[in-house]
Structures are given as structure tokens and as C-alpha cells.
């Protein structure tokens, strides 16, 4: 499991990577009321804005952490955006990406480094 400075978590699952945001991020955002997910099949580049999250307070973006293809999105989030708050680490995942350059993962923090950053 890796973490970005933008509070995303990346969990490798075979040849794809599951992406979500951390509990720390969802606490900062407040109650999430809308999530706009990318299209399955979209080819994205690292730092492309791929998800829009609307909390009660404001809209914010999630960027693609890796180059690759979006292979699956969490449709349960579109139905129940609060899942992102309630289960940010697992059932509240956003999308799965098949990286075209898996070595990009190496640049990200491990859990200890991430926890140190938000401490």
C-alpha cells in the first residue's frame, strides 16, 4: 500500500491498482454528497483530474496517481457518496487503474511516512 501527498491510497491488486482517499482526507472534506467518477476505458496520465468530489462545503478533485487505463469504477459511490466517508480505506474506493508504468508507484510514501506527514 502506497500513499500520495494528495491523500490518495494505492493498493496493488494483481496487475491493477485500486485508488481511494484516506480517512484523514475525508475528515478534512467533511460530508461527501456527490462523487463524479471517470469513464471505464479512459486512458489517463499522472496528475490528470479524474474524480470530482463534492462535500457539503465545496468541490475538490482527485488526480490520477499513475499513467494508465481506468479499468473499473466504484458505482456504489455514485449511489451512496457517504460511503467515501464511512469506508474510506476499502469499500469507499474510487477507481482501479492498470498502470502503463508501474515504476511510478515507487515514488510514493509507505504508510509510516504518510502517517508522519499528517501527524
Amino acid at each position, binding site marked *: 500500500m502506497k500513499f500520495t501527498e494528495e491523500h490518495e491510497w494505492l493498493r496493488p491488486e494483481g496487475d491493477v491498482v485500486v485508488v481511494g482517499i484516506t480517512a484523514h482526507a475525508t475528515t478534512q472534506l*467533511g*460530508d461527501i*454528497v*456527490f462523487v*463524479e467518477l471517470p469513464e471505464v476505458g479512459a486512458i489517463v496520465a499522472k496528475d490528470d483530474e479524474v474524480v*470530482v468530489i*463534492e462535500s*457539503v*462545503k*465545496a*468541490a475538490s478533485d482527485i488526480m490520477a496517481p499513475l499513467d494508465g487505463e481506468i479499468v473499473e469504477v466504484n458505482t456504489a459511490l*455514485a449511489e451512496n*457518496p457517504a460511503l467515501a466517508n464511512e469506508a474510506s480505506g476499502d469499500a469507499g474506493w474510487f477507481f482501479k487503474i492498470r498502470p502503463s508504468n508501474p515504476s511510478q508507484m515507487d515514488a510514493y510514501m509507505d504508510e509510516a511516512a504518510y502517517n508522519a506527514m499528517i501527524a
Partner: protein
Amino acid sequence: MSDLLRTPLHDLHISLGAKMVEFAGYSMPVQYPMGVMQEHTHTREKAGLFDVSHMGQVIIKGPDFQSAAQALETLIPVDIMGLALNRQRYGFLTNDAGGIMDDLMLANRGDHILVVVNAACKSDDIAHLKANLSDCAVSEVTDRALLAIQGPASAAVLAALDPAAAEMRFMDVAVLSFDGVACWVSRSGYTGEDGYEISVPAHQATALAERLLAHPDVAPIGLGARDSLRLEAGLCLYGHDIDTLTTPTQAALNWAIQNVRRRDGAREGGFPGAPVILDELQDGAERKRVGLRPDGRAPMREGVTLFSGIDDAAPIGQITSGGFGPTVGRPIAMGYVPVAHAQNGTIIYGELRGKRLPLTVVALPFTPHSFKR
């Protein structure tokens, strides 16, 4: 935030775990640990306590109430002379173009008028009042805090401290004694719920707030929920839904201008912008503030541009307030559209992240008011 002004309740907000933000030059709580959504729901179901001490409390005193009211009617297009003793009324200061300089509450407190104005406007308002009311003394009340308690449990909470609170009707004002402290109380607020606003001496404000918060039905509420509550109630936020470029008729505030000040009324006109405002009261304005319901789940916020069709090039208006309404459970908004598009049920489009998404024009408020009239 060290150069920001602080209300008398600042330390209490910190101790309650509030997240503080800059608002109108003040350090104010935007939310408490409960979170915006739950704070909103708590206010609708029980009672929320709000610090509104940043707002301006201004006393206008003339030789007597009637002369002060007469003078103030030269600046405000509402019936102030006819305001009964211990009654309050919503109003606004207008400019020569018929635009709204600020919206405010006016109370007849016997020998003076108590005016409550918006924080961001208060210094301009006071200068404007002083410059134009030469026979009145205009003074800002600087030694009192202002609390609001809103929600269905408010009356019972206050009546436990002074039973007279329960006897008040919507828009009544009274001096009540809470634990021996004389408070200026009005049965009013800006959430659409039954509730009260309480002006309390600054040095006793924290004790009163703590006393109210000790009640199991009362929770502290920040600016975040305050905004979603007033949006659901269809109430204007100054600087957003109304400003110097919007007129009362455009803002759908005709109800606030009594017949006595309208054309053929006993005290017709005589306020800044009267020719424009009186014409619009009679003939309507070209555009109007309306309720808007985005058809999808994506909130549309302030600044979203509105179009009449999915491909039309020319915008027809803008959203002035928008977000998610926790009580209605969906996104809601208010904005200005030409009168041709202001009928309930009209479908228009808002441009969100490059896409045109439909909204329906709907009646306000989104959540019914529960004032105790």
C-alpha cells in the same frame, strides 16, 4: 488569523473543538466536530446555538420612536412608523438606483429602534445612517454579544430560563431575564425554524451559551450549517443573493415592502431609488430570483452560469447560492433568471465543469418554514 476580530465567544468555540475560519473580518466557527450535515439536521430536529456576534447591533434614537421611524423611512422602503411596540420587521437599505445596500432587522423598542445589520456591511451602514439621520443619535452597540437559538426545541429550552419566552410570537421582541441577566430577545432567526435571537452583555455571553449548551437538545452550530439552513429556507444571503445591483422586486422581496410605502400608499416612496422600486413593484422586473433544483446529484454552486437551452450561446443568468440541502436530501440552488424563465417547472441548464446539466425552477422555500406566527 491573529489580526482577525474575535467575538466574546471565541474561546468557547475553540474549547468546543470548532474549526475557525475568517468571515467578514472575524474569526468564526465554520463547523464543530459533529460536522455540517449533522449540525444542520440537529437544528431542524432539536435546537442549534449560533454565535452571530459579528453582526452589527445599532440603536437609532430620536426625540421619540415616531420621529426616529419617520427619519429612517427616508432610507428604508418599509413601514417603520407602523411597527407596533415590541415588534420586529425585516427590511433593507436601498441606494439611488433601487439596489439593496444591506438587509436588516428593525425592532420597535419603545424609545428607540434596534437595527441588526450584516457584519460585512456594518461600518458602511452606520456611516450611511449617521450621514442621513441628522436628528437622530446612531450608535453601535459594542458591549453585547448576539446568539441565535434555532429549531423546534428552542422555545422549551428558553422557557426553562424565563417562561415569558414561550409567550412570544414570531417577530416579537422582549427583554427576558436569563439567570438574572437582562437579554434583548426576538423570536426570529434565519434558518426557517422557530427560534430566537438573544442580545446579551458581552461579559455574560459565554456563561449563557454554556448554560444553553448544557441542555441535551442544544448543540453548537457553525457557519457551514447556517448557510445550508438559510438556503433551504430560501432566504437571501447579502453579497451573494442580493447586493447593490439587485432590486427588491428582482430579489423576490416585494413582501417586505408594505402597501403604505407603495404607489398610492399613505407614505408612498420617499426612500432612495423609489422611482425604480415603485415602478417594479407595479410592473415587475426583468429578472427574478428563483429556486432551482438540479435534476442530478451534482451540487451547483454560486457562480454557475445558467442557459435556457442545452446549446444556447448566450447565458441567461447565474446561480447566487447553491449546495447540498441535508433536509431535502439533494442539491438545491437559488439564482437569477429572466421573468420568461421564472415560472415553476421551467427547465434550464447550468454549466458545470464544461457540461450543461438541467435544473428545474421551483417554488421557495425548499424546506417549509415553521415560524410561530
